[in-house]
């Protein structure tokens, strides 16, 4: 019976294909499984337990950790600070990065030098940027207070004044994120066809109208991508906080990841910190889902 034999052969071939496919996938699957999926599940598990110093689950706590998280004196303030931080960093980064991208999206001698300079903040780590800004923020000798002094203004307690510290951390973060977002936006601009600008010019549109009526609508998918990635990043900021302020003064810069880190490591409250990590996961999950949803609907205006 040739048909069944062919069928059997095909079935065997299909198993060979499955084995081969999974074989090629296995290195990535192994790493992602052990260091991403497993910890996610285990963190959820730990969040339902009281834990010992080593972080092992000891007694079932049910939702108690979550109750403690939401009634603790630090979590909700930390969420508030994180949201404020997001509001400070995301719009500013987008506007400045867009300005840099629009300025360098032209045919001009030496433009590559400017592009590379603008992109260069991307090479600077959170730790290095934070140390540089700590010097800039230095109360008596730093450049910022020196400049204020030169124009006759009083110095600012950049990192010590609870009303200013979050702004200082945001300033550092905006500077750090410029390079990456500039590159992405410049790429977006370069993919807009020249003819659109030419016809807008023939219609007598000035450079501002061209920006508002041609560039921004056509750039909207990229702007959205940049915006959501920035929001997710701001929810994950850690290095600059650890070096600049350690969450202080008086919790003014205690961003959510710093709060989780403090509880999980220096304070050894693993169950409690796990519950906070689960909350962080849910927030980022929702934000990423939004991003996927929007990028699927890729807007075309042509």
């Amino acid at each position, binding site marked *: 019976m040739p048909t069944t034999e062919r069928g059997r052969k095909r079935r065997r071939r299909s198993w060979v294909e*499955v084995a*081969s*496919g*999974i074989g*090629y*996938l296995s*290195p*990535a699957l192994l*790493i*992602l499984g052990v260091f*991403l*999926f*497993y*910890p*996610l599940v285990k*963190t959820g598990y730990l969040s339902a337990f009281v834990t010992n110093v080593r972080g092992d689950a000891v007694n079932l706590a049910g939702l108690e950790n979550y109750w403690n998280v939401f009634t603790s004196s630090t979590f909700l303030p930390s969420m508030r600070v994180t949201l404020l931080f997001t509001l400070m960093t995301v719009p500013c980064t987008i506007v400045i990065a867009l*300005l840099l991208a629009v*300025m360098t999206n*032209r*045919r*001009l001698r030496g433009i590559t030098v*400017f592009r590379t*300079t*603008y*992109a*260069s903040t991307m*090479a*600077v*780590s959170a*730790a*290095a940027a934070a*140390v540089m800004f700590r*010097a800039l923020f*230095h109360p*008596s000798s*730093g*450049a910022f207070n*020196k400049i204020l*002094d030169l124009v006759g203004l009083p110095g600012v307690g950049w990192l010590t004044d609870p009303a200013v510290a979050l702004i200082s951390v945001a300033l550092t973060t905006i*500077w750090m994120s410029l390079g*990456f977002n500039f590159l*992405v936006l410049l*790429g*977006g601009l*370069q*993919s807009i066809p020249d003819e659109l*600008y030419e016809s807008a010019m023939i219609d007598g549109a000035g450079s501002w109208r061209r920006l508002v009526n041609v560039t921004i609508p056509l750039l909207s998918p*990229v702007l959205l*991508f*940049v915006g959501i990635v920035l929001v997710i990043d701001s929810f994950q900021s*850690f290095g600059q906080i*650890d*070096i600049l302020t350690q969450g202080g003064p008086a919790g003014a810069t205690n961003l959510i*990841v710093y709060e989780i880190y403090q509880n999980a490591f220096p304070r050894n409250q693993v169950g409690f*910190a796990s519950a906070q*990590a689960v909350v*962080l996961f849910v927030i*980022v999950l929702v934000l*990423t889902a939004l991003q996927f949803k929007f990028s699927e609907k*890729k807007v075309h205006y042509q």
Partner: protein
Amino acid sequence: MTPVTGRWSKVITYTVLVALALMTAFPVLYALSVSLMSQEDFNAGAFFPTEFTPENYARATESFPLLKYLLNSMVMSLLVTMALLVTSSTAAFAFTFVKFRGRSFFFAVIISTMMIPWEATIIVNFQTVRDLDWLNTFAGLSVPSFATAFGIFLLRQSFLTLPNDLYDAARIDGCPRRRFFVTMVLPLSRPMLATLAVYGFLTTWNKYLWPLLVTSDDSVRTVQIGLKMMQGEEMTAWPVVMAAVVMAIVPTVVVLLVGVRSLQRGLMSGALKG
């Protein structure tokens, strides 16, 4: 792209470009300047060194094991970059040239890892690495970063642009799949592999939270954590610390200068199709 015409508009454009360049480069230029000034200059709030003090660089490497930290960062970054190239390219190959049942399921599983914030997993990952006895080892530092959905996605986009006929022809010639992968797919995708290498190196070199958790002595401590350690020692010697900062960013600045074009190409395919 708009060509700039007219002398005045050129002058204005260049002025704005230079002003913006000074603004974005200011922190790095300031760090460079402080790294070459004396402690007295810094205390006086100088912007430029009055006495040129390149000795700060020597002092940074003498009073701290900075060279060891830099070497550790280099080892970690190269390990992760190479591993990322292997795991991402094999997985992307499975998603493009091996047609097997369950492929779209696995693809969904891997893409869904993009939704897991790495910071939410640190507690358990720390326990895993501790229980494996990997604290203060390169394995503990680097193995958890050996695969990312982003890298797989990036290379899949690139492999998808290779013509299917290529594969069929190779199969008819009796070329085994593994050889097709190594001798055809990888060489033809060199530009995107370079993008992933640049991206992997930059992000790994700049990692902070994970090395902070898994290194407690100098044996594998990375330079980012070294920068933290250099402060707080009673009075911070800022010119020396700035010399260390400059040394810590040189490798990534070099990689960025070399790779900026390839990075931009990759970021676009991630941003637009992601």
